[in-house]
């Protein structure tokens, strides 16, 4: 290797790592500054600069206060109920739909696919204007099952992930089961569904994070925040009179994003691959 090539390689490496460090710094800074502030006492918060580290990393007062003030105990229960139901129902609905669309040829198959695709292009915020009226008529406002029902609706990405997965499962498997006299229900539940497990895990993680973080519809349809707040909407408690006590607010924010962080650390690979496979197809 000549000197030029060598030094060129070193420069390239320096640029490479500097860019990574620079952008990682900006990606982390907003969150890390919140963590720092969340550990400060009221006095420290008022007297020191926000970027000065707290005296004690064991001062959990803000976390306890934020948890109680925002009623996050209730909120975590609500979010868990919503999460479990939404994941359960949307998995059953989504896999069944994908099964029919992938395995059966019938007139209207393409039409149904296109209907789901088109639905995903409609911006949610705009659609909630008329959906609000429908929710109102169905008495679904301030009604947990109502919100869950809305959240189970169309989810094209999951359907695409499932359809893609079905395409890779050999149809001769179905055919030999039919020869053995198995019904379609049996084929789906006994043979195909177990094989679909990796796809189910992937789309559940994506849908789970999305559901946990959803706040716009939760705010519209679960307006009674004392009873029906989710973890995300419980943070609305800090709007208003508490709006400048950032040590408290930051603690609340950190609590709310801990579950997402844990899931992320545990399931990085599935999240990445889920995003990629969903996006390429769409």
């Amino acid at each position, binding site marked *: 290797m000549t000197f030029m090539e060598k030094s060129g390689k070193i420069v390239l490496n320096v640029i490479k790592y500097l860019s990574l460090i620079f952008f990682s710094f900006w990606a982390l800074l907003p969150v890390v500054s919140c963590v720092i502030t969340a550990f400060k006492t009221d006095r420290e918060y008022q007297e020191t600069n926000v970027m000065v580290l707290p005296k004690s990393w064991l001062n959990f007062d803000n976390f306890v206060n934020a948890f109680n003030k925002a009623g996050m105990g209730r909120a975590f229960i609500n979010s868990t109920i919503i999460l479990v139901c939404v994941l359960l129902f949307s998995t059953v609905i989504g896999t069944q739909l994908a099964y029919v669309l992938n395995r059966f040829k019938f007139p209207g198959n393409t039409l149904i696919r296109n209907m789901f695709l088109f639905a995903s292009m409609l*911006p949610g*915020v705009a659609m909630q204007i008329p959906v609000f009226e429908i929710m109102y008529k169905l008495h679904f406002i301030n009604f947990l099952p109502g919100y869950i029902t809305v959240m189970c609706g169309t989810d094209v990405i999951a359907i695409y992930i499932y359809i893609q997965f079905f395409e890779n499962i050999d149809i001769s498997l179905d055919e030999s089961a039919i020869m053995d006299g198995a019904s379609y229900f049996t084929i789906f539940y006994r043979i195909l569904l177990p094989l679909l497990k990796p796809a189910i895990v992937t789309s559940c993680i994506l849908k789970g994070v999305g559901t946990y973080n959803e706040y716009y519809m939760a705010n519209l349809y679960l307006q009674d925040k004392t009873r029906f707040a989710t973890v*995300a909407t419980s943070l609305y408690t800090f709007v208003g009179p508490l709006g400048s006590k950032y040590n408290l607010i930051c603690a609340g924010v950190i609590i709310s994003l801990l579950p*997402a962080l844990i899931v992320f650390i545990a399931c990085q690979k599935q999240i990445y691959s889920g995003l990629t496979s969903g996006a*390429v197809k769409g």
Partner: protein
Amino acid sequence: MSTPANAAVRKNKRSFPEWLRSRDGQKVLVMMAFLIIPMVLLMVFTYIPFAEMVRYSFYNMKYVGARKFVGMKNYIKVFSRKDCFGALKLSLYYMGGSVVQLSLALYLATILSFKVKGGSLFKGFMFFPFLINGIAIGFIFKFFYTRGFVFDTVLQWCGFSLDNLPYWLKDRSINNISLVGTSVWRYFGQNMVLFIGAIMSVDNELYEAAMLDGANRFQQFKYIILPSIKTIFVLNVILSISGSLSAFEPPYVITDGANGTGTYFVIMHQIAHTQQKVGLASAMAVVLLLIIFTVTILQKLFFKYVFKDSVE
């Protein structure tokens, strides 16, 4: 085995319960059972509301109470009221932001798809903002941009003086850019992961062959990486334009549309849910949807044409 003609005759003679037990009957039964719930949900929460929205746009109405047919008046208002259609100008900021976001994502994805020490850690750091809920993001950035707080402090470390720094969320000349910055912050990591996925799907032998042929990094980028992510890149460009037109979250959670940061959808949200002018808000939604569809179709045609050209 019976001939098809025979089978057809037999089929006609079957009674309904018999047909139900046959393979064909089972098939239809399963299809109905599996399709009915998703289709009902799709109808009730997407297509019926969609039709309703178009109908509402011709009425002067609230959620409850009397409604009056007003013809095209709502549509005229959308274009004549200063706060409605004019708000679409703000989407230019968001389009600018998505250019930055996509190029940044592409740059970092290229770096990370080669061997890098601590690569997955960097990737995780930059991706994580995507997983934070919207309300938390609102608080994080209200805090981040507050006078003398996080952003100002870091800039002061770099030698800026606080007196020369603007109020990031109040100053009308800069606040939209601050908001766009939060959106770039949130999504560039996700774009990056998508691009890495696409780059990784290329067979490794291709890179080795290119190395052997003496291709440098830039040539590798141009002839191997770029073609491999063409589809997903185009998809993201298309998504980013419609996303910019319907930009909503950053101003909604951070400034609530104050000081000239109200994008089209933030204004629409306020008109629909605060002022309860459902008809006008519906008209706004319909207008924007038409624009988005037109833009999307034009873009698809454009890319089809351009890429067809480049292949030939």
